[in-house]
């Protein structure tokens, strides 16, 4: 299985995602330069964290125009796995592959810390080997992670089981005090209609080893790997994009 990690000029978690795949998952992985539309035969595309083009404008607003994004969008529309982490999630929103937008954190400050995530669906290639309701310890590091969408869209996301993760307490408690950024309905990650695109604000690639504070991020990567055992991602073939 081959992963492609997109490098925008201001990506700074591209190397971390690369190492997670190469060193912890033992899979093949290649960097994809943002200026080159060639996806080099990747089975999964990761849009990593960072500040794609400096993000002095809205986060991800310029990245969607990078040449690689045309290919990424086409890949996603054909059912390919596209995984946006942090800044990558922001890029997916700007590119229209996922609904909604990111506001500034409600405290109006950057926030970096370990948080807990409740697994809200196992019906996706990213979570199908995680138990429903499982609590994962995975860090956040962002200033614009306050997920917003109109009520109607939030209802639709929930009705279609497209909320992948919510922020929670250490024992899975869903409460405002555990919402680190003010996200609507404590949403930390969502899927597209085809369930092949995941946008996730926290950083599973930073939670791959106990020495770094948690190895819970491995569960997501292992799910992706497991989904692919048959040669094609389960869930990735079900439907077209929203």
């Amino acid at each position: 299985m081959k992963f492609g990690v997109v490098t925008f000029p201001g990506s700074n978690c591209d190397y971390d995602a690369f190492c997670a795949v190469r060193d912890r998952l033992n899979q093949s992985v290649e960097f994809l330069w943002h200026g080159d539309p060639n996806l080099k035969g990747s089975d999964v595309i990761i849009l990593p964290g960072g500040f794609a083009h400096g993000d002095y404008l809205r986060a991800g607003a310029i990245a969607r125009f990078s040449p690689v994004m045309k290919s990424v969008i086409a890949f996603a529309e054909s059912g390919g796995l596209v995984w946006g982490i942090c800044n990558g999630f922001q890029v997916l929103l700007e590119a229209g592959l996922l609904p909604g937008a990111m506001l500034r954190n409600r405290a109006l400050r950057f926030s970096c810390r370990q948080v807990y995530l409740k697994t809200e669906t196992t019906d996706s290639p990213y979570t199908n080997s995680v138990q429903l309701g499982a609590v994962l310890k995975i860090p956040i590091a962002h200033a614009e992670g306050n997920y917003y969408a109109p009520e109607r869209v939030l209802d639709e996301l929930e009705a279609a089981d497209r909320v992948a993760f919510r922020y929670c307490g250490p024992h899975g408690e869903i409460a405002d005090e555990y919402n680190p950024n003010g996200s609507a309905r404590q949403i930390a990650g969502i899927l597209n209609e085809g369930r092949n695109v995941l946008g996730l604000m926290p950083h599973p690639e930073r939670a791959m080893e106990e020495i770094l504070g948690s190895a819970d991020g491995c569960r997501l990567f292992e799910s992706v790997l497991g989904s692919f055992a048959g040669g094609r991602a389960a869930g990735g073939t079900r439907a077209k994009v929203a």
Partner: protein
Amino acid sequence: MREQPVTPELVAEHGLNEEEHQRIKEILGREMTFTELGIYSVMWSEHCSYKNSILLLKTLPRSGPNLLAEAGEENAGIVDIGDGRAVVFKIESHNHPSAVEPYQGAATGVGGILRDIFTMGARPIAALNSLRFGNPEDPKVRYLLNGVVRGIGDYGNSFGVPTVGGEIYFEDAYTTNCLVNAMAVGIVRTDRIARATASVVGSPVYVVGSRTGRDGIHGATFASEELSEKSEAKRPAVQIGDPFTEKLLLEATLEMIKRDLIVGIQDMGAAGITCSCSETAFAGGQGIEIDIAKVPVREEGMIPYETLLSESQERMLVIVKTGREEEVRAIFRKWELQAAKIGEVIGGGHFKVYENGELKSDIPAETLALGGGTPVYKREEQRPARLDQTQHFDFAAIPVPGDLCAVLMTLIGTPNIASKEWVYRQYDGMVRTNTAVNSGSDAAVLRIRKTRTALAMTTDGNGRYCFLNPRRGAQIAVAEAARNLICSGAAPLAVTNCLNFGNPYKPEMYYLFAECVRGMGEACRAFNTPVTGGNVSFYNEDPGRAVYPTPTIGMIGMIEDITHITTQWFKQTSDVIMLIGTSRDDLGASEYLKTIHSKITGDAPYLDLAEEKNVQQFVLAAIRAGLVNSAHDVSDGGLAVCLAECCITNPDGIFGCAIRLHSDIRADALWFGEAQSRIVISLVQDKQAAFEQLAAKHQVPLTVLGAVTADRFRIEHICDLDPRSMKETYYACLPKLMERTK
């Protein structure tokens, strides 16, 4: 700006005195041109020339078996850590810019220190910062703190370096003149170290990165005078940071170095093109000639003086290998950065500046470069009379408070002791996935990929101690830094330092500086941690007062095996708690004295370097033997605060303790005194015997304090508290202050 005739008045306005003016005339054999005046004024400023400090700095221990460069030889210190790798690190001040424009001042401080690291071919792996502010009850102070923290955060977070540690103190002495010392650490393969040298005649000279604008002109000169009401008008001398461009510059620079395309490289910080050209020319024993009109600029109509002195950020001077220019240009095209050839290396040792072929400046580079012919002064020292009074203060006059439990709760809720989480949560401390211990323990720890080893790092300094006893205060700064590394499982390797002081022309001020340097040298010799570099920041004063003498020590340590990584907090109930070292009847300079009794007096706390070293060596041996579950040094707030921190700072839980301790020392000194060389550890009961044997072998005093418990913080005869309420007090202090609207 227009070129003007060089008159004695204009020379004086540029901060050069008459004697210096005469010397320059002798060097050149003529009067300076206007352009040359600009060049000399920055290169002979305190900031670039170290003219009032260099003699003393040379007394510091500056060599060691693993050092790959001597202090001052390269842009940062560099120490061999085995496996074909070296660690590169340095700390620098950005005090004056931060005092007038906190956000950009701090941001560009971070940017500048990062460039010092990657200009040597090293990828930055961590950033730390040491900050000093006035009383946060003052809204102006909160404005400064808020801006500085945002500046540091935005720059490091976007650039992609984890900010993993540092320290903050609040003292009235820093009210208008805050201190912002930024440290960066990088790792480089020893076969890819880049040098700041222009050694090969005929090599093309490039300026790469951002375009040059009018920002930051005379930043170095601004840093070399006292702050005053007029300083607000110097805001244009503060540079503007662009972390995105810095990130691009990092990648382009490392790619160029990896492909072996260059002779030398130096980042542009203070005095921009002028400093980088003259220093690399001097280091290479050659000259450099440039045509200033070839520098890509942001603004029209810039005269050579301005372009030469601009401190626009995110630029580098690169001396390219002949024949490799097209490859260099291709790399910078890929990263969408400027790369312009502006001249070449020449023989003869002169730094020559042309503008469209017309010679504007012709100066022997040697006379501009630190370590060359820049002025060197020995200043007068005068011991302040106040020290005789404060050092003999009679503590019998201070009553022991009846309720020491209330004292403890007050101390853990005071800004100097309370958690700094409000600050460090705004920093990405995890990017690049090497951070094993983030902010919040005694030192930060980063593992080194593909090895069993890790690096520990810390910054330490206590201005109040130095104010009351500069020599011992500086010794303590070094001792505490080493102790923090030891508590994390590391052996101290080497030091970088940032020396923040007042006006060196005032003899009492200079005494404080000289004593601090002497104390630092003594301690660095004791711990075998050579000084690899750093910087000096004088003139940290306004007409009202000077800052406390504040030497900041940045120290790096090596952890032999990642299983030795140790944190400060308790891990499990029923572990035994031990105190290593000796408590003393010592209240001098303590946070307790300041907070509870409103007194800043006494001598700096007790320290004996030999005793300290012995304690440290024992604790490291015990950690390496696998005997220790937690280790935390006793510092601000003393033993009781140390125990409280052990109980409430574990990110994954909260503990209590049951403590019993008998002593003849007066109770407030026992629990809140800051005598040095003490460490609190916890360990499982089974290992107590082995631990005691090892202590006996090292001849280190041990006291069993009690045990880790689940839910009460009990010290016999002193307190019985709910650790959850202690935690609330400790973590809520700064957020409450900083989110206040008035």
